Structure formats: C-alpha cells, structure tokens
C-alpha cells in the first residue's frame, strides 16, 4: 500500500506519546503476518499492511487498559473498537486509532485450496486484485476476490467507525462487499435433522482449545469464562460433543448483540469448524428484531442490556 510510508511517519510522530502501537509485521513465513507491538522506531520500520494482515488487533485492547495504545485498524476492526467503547471496556482517551483503508484479506484456507500446502509457499505478492503465489513447483496468479474470507462478503465497510488518522491510497476501492450469506443460506436449506447432524459432525472435531474465545475481541471475561470453572459448573471436563456444543452456545449467547462479526473465532479455529455461522444468525435476528448493528454507534446501548416496554418486532404467541 502506498500509504504505508505515510502511516509509519505518523506512528513515529505519535510514538513518544504512546506506550505501544499495535500493527502487523511479516510472520514466520511468506503467507503469515503477525501482530507487532511497536515501541521503537526500528520496530515501526517492520510494519506491513497487506491482505495477509488478517488479525483483528482490537482483541488486545481490553488487556492493555490503562496504557496509551495506538492501533492500526481496518474499517471492520474499528467496529470492534466501537463496541468495546460502547461497553466502556476501553477508554477513548487512551486510544489512538490509525485507520487504514483495508487492502482486502486472504483466507488462508481458500489459498491453501488453490495452491496446496502453505508451508511450501516461497513468496506471495499483491498487485491490485491480482495475487501471485510462488511454490517450488509452480507460480499461480489468483484473484483476490476469490480469496476473501466469508466475513468480507456479507458486509461492506467504506468508512471506519472512528479514527484519529486515516490512510487511504488515491483511487483505492473498498474490497469487502455485501452479498448473500451463502453459508447461512446453505445451512438453512437443510432440514432440521441434517442441521443437527451438521453441527454434531463439525463440533465433534473441536479440541476445546478455546482459540475462538481467546481471539474474540468481545470476550471480556478474560480468565473467568464459565467454560473453565466448576462453580458455576456449566460444562464438565468431558470432551463429548454435548460440552463442545454447549460451549459454542455460551459463547454465541454472550456475544448476542455484541458480536462485530470480525470472524476471528472461525479463523482461529485450528480444526476449521464453521462457528461464525451461529453468530451471524444471531446478528441477523438482532438486526431484524431491534434494527441494531453492533459497534457502529459508540453511544448506543447493546440490545440485550436494554428493552422497550412494547417490542414492535416481537410477536408473542397467543395461546
């Protein structure tokens, strides 16, 4: 991205006022970027912004409360920041948002399905919508649009929810787009038994590593999650599907009206379980019921923390 130089300059300028600036840097191999905690000018030099920068860095913010934090954030990431502010989980004064126009994102599962084992990729480069990938065996040219994660296909963000500094390249287009939620549609086309079997099958793979939970920017219970305790004893230590399923429902319900659909839960899942679908379904229902989209308005109250004496969209059953 052309704005990266400008971005680095701005971070350098602001760094003296800040304890840390969170951004991305190159990870352990060509296809992986990794969160970077920048405290020195040298570390700023390592900053990258490209479609491999997939982590939603907002997840680190509640843990850094009390510090002056700068954060490099894409438009969708600012939605999570918005929600955190809404719930007073972070302080606006402690925060400096370096908002970057999203260059698009690569779903590594989709990339792997195209080019094979990612562990063998020698290099990857981006030129607008073209992605060029080199492996020892071949060189492939791919369309970034085809590699977008599901979350970039259901909601389009042109502008950030909030920003202190904004970085956009001239003529840069919004990559994410609003299309039908194909995962959810496919699921809803199944009959009930198939859906039950679908979840039982997928969730059976879960290893209860809780990457989905720990990567979630809205999981503010931190180390006190009820999945881990015996008081209250919501889940047993067993690893049967029932416990795993129940955990997903705990997570989804605790996120209801708060989830910003950043998709980190699903991305983090090492076992590739399509858990975002449940959260999306809830978000869709919340939108229908309360006309509410989480994180978009810093002053709004999440819908399950308030009520209307007459709920216009809830039709209660007559007996």
């Amino acid at each position: 991205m052309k704005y990266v130089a400008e971005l680095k300059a701005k971070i350098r300028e602001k760094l003296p006022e800040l304890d840390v600036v969170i951004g991305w840097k190159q990870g352990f191999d060509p296809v992986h970027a990794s969160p970077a905690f920048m405290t020195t000018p040298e570390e700023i030099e390592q900053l990258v912004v490209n479609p491999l920068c997939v982590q939603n860095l907002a997840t680190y913010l509640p843990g850094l409360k009390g510090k002056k934090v700068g954060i490099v954030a894409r438009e969708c990431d600012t939605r999570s920041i918005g929600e955190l502010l809404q719930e007073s989980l972070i302080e606006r004064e402690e925060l400096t948002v370096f908002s970057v126009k999203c260059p698009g994102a690569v779903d590594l599962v989709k990339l792997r399905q195209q080019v094979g084992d990612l562990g063998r990729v020698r290099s990857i480069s981006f030129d607008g919508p073209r992605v060029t990938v080199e492996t020892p065996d071949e060189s492939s040219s791919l369309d970034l649009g085809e590699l977008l994660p599901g979350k970039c296909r259901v909601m389009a963000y042109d502008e950030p929810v909030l920003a202190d500094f904004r970085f956009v390249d001239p003529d840069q287009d919004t990559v994410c787009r609003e299309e039908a939620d194909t995962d959810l549609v496919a699921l809803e086309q199944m009959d009930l038994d198939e859906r039950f079997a679908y979840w039982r099958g997928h969730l059976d793979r879960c290893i209860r590593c809780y990457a989905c939970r720990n990567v979630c920017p809205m999981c503010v219970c931190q180390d006190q999650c009820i999945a881990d305790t015996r008081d209250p004893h919501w889940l047993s230590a067993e690893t049967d599907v029932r416990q795993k399923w129940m955990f997903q429902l705990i997570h989804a319900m605790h996120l209801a009206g708060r989830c910003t659909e950043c998709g980190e839960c699903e991305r983090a899942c090492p076992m590739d379980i399509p858990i975002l679908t449940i959260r999306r379904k809830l978000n869709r229902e919340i939108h229908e019921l309360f006309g509410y989209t989480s994180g978009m308005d810093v002053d709004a109250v999440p819908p399950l923390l308030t009520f209307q004496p007459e709920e216009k969209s809830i039709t209660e059953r007559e007996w």
Partner: protein
Amino acid sequence: MVMGDLKFCPKEGLSRWVEELSREHTVLVPQQAGDAVEFLPFAEGSELSLDRQPTAPPKKSVFPQTETLMRFEYQKDPEHPDRQTLQIKETLPGKEKTVILGCRPCGARGFSVFDPVFGQGEYLDPYYQARREHTVFVSLACRHPENTCFCNWVGGGPADSAGSDVLMLPAGGGYVLRPVTDQGRQIVEVGGFEDASPEQQTEADRLAEEAAENLSPAPELEEVPDKLFELFENLDFWELMAAKCISCGACTYLCPTCYCFNISDEYSGLQGKRIRTWDNCMSNLFTHEASGHNPRPTKAQRLRNRVGHKFSYYPKLHEQVFACCGCGRCIKSCPMSVDIREIVLSAKEYADE
C-alpha cells in the same frame, strides 16, 4: 537391518493393505474433515489424506483427551439410607490392537517424550501403558518439509524412525516399507508385499536425504536449557515474547508431546466417573491452587512455562531430550503466529548478550 525386511507397497496397494489391517484392528488414518485432517477410524470408502501433515497428531489414540480412570456408584441401604457403600469399577483400556497409519515421523516421535513420564520409572500409568503397548505406528516419511518444520532441531528428521513401528518411505510411485519393530514387521506381513528392489531402496533414501536438505539448518541448542533457566525471573523478556499470545490452547492441544492432564470427577445422581483430561498450561486455571493462589497469573508466565518445560525443565530431568518433536503445529495453528523457534533463539541470544 536385514535387507529382506524392506517391502514395497505400490500406491494402489495401500488401501488394500489398510482394509486388510482393519479386519483385525482399529486402523486410524488421516482423513479430511472440514478443512482439517484428522485421524479417524478407517471404514469402507474412507479416503486417506496423506499429502498434508495431519492437523492434529495421533496423540489422542494413546493419550485420549478424556480418559475414564474408573467408574463408581454409591449403593444405598434402603432400610438405612444414611448408610451407603461405594462400588468402584475398573476401566482399563482393552487389549485390542490399534494401528495408526500415515502419521508423520514427528507424530510418532512424540511418544518418546511420553514414555519416560508414563511408562518408565517408579510410577507407571496403566492406562497409557496398555494403549501404548497395543498401538502400532506406521509413519510416512516426509517428502517436502514445510516452513514450520524444525524436527532437525530436536533430533528428528523427515525419515526419523524413533517411536515408529514401520516407516513408509515414498519411492517409485509407492512406498518402501521399513519395519522398525517386531510389531511393525507383523503388520507389514499382513500386506503380503514384494521385497523392495534396490532401486526403490535407493530412491527412497535419496528422497529422504533431499527432504532433510530442504530443512533449514538446525542451530546449536546445547546451552538453551540453562539459558532458559537463567531467564526464569526475567519477566520483561517473557512479556515481550508473549505480547501477541492470546493464551488459547491450540498449541498445546495439537502438540504431540504435551502431556499435562487434569483429573476430575463427574457425577450424575449416585453414579459417577473419574476422568483424566488434557490440561493446558496456557490456561489461567492451569495448576490453579485451591487456596485461590495462581502460580502463573499472567500469560507471560504461562508461555514461559510452556517453552521452559519443553526446552529446559524436561531435558534437565530426562537426559537432555527436548520435549518437542519439531512438528511446527504450534506455529502454524497459532491464530497470532507465535513462533516457538523465535522464542528459543531469542532466549539463546538474549543470554548471549
């Protein structure tokens, strides 16, 4: 090694062999589920997924995520309900043989870290022993090391046979089968394969060597155990290392060598069971004390434990063997791309300064 031990299994003969084995044993083979590759019981029509390193290692076949240690039931005297007796039922694993086919050498090597803990010395674990004894590993040597592979750092290699019963070496459009143990030999016999030809053997060796060469060179790690020990109190260092860690258990639960566990009782009414489940030192509750004291309240301290255990405390207890097989799963499955190699090298360099 006796030359006549080497057999050749053509690619198309593999599934026949697996089918044959599955008549007498449970055969776990890598299969795709979602986008993950898991070890699942072979059934008719199962498709083997051998091209990728399986997402999870075969650890759970010997060390299941939930092991029922015993069942119990309170029996009440109907005349005197305040008197009850406790009946305990043993739940040792059966003696049926399980074959793991298609794991990587690093996956099988993982158990060499388990053995000193569960299978040797004063305290023997009958559950582990029973499963270990009755499980046969047929490992597939690696053809193309990945960016995350570092088995050569910890004494392994693409065709390492430690922990395996049979090694499958790709060659000539099939596999040269190299039995490592007697159990392995019996398994190979079931296939009724031809002996491997010298050309096939040569090709297999050549490919294994090539693969080894493709690994990045292993650094000298001899001083690491001591240096990590020295860094124990240096929380600044660990905070820096752990900054991006989110304390999930993906690294631990996918690790072929992590063996920490927890024991709990689960009840329903008058009956219950005592279970042993995987534990995870990244979790806040790991060795959380009943008093409320937490020995590792921060993620930095927990990450220190994970790296320290693998590269310092374990080798100091067990003949300088690292509790790591270099499979790289902790790196590639980490949502935040935390790289254990980087931490080990940083520790080494930090100490150097």
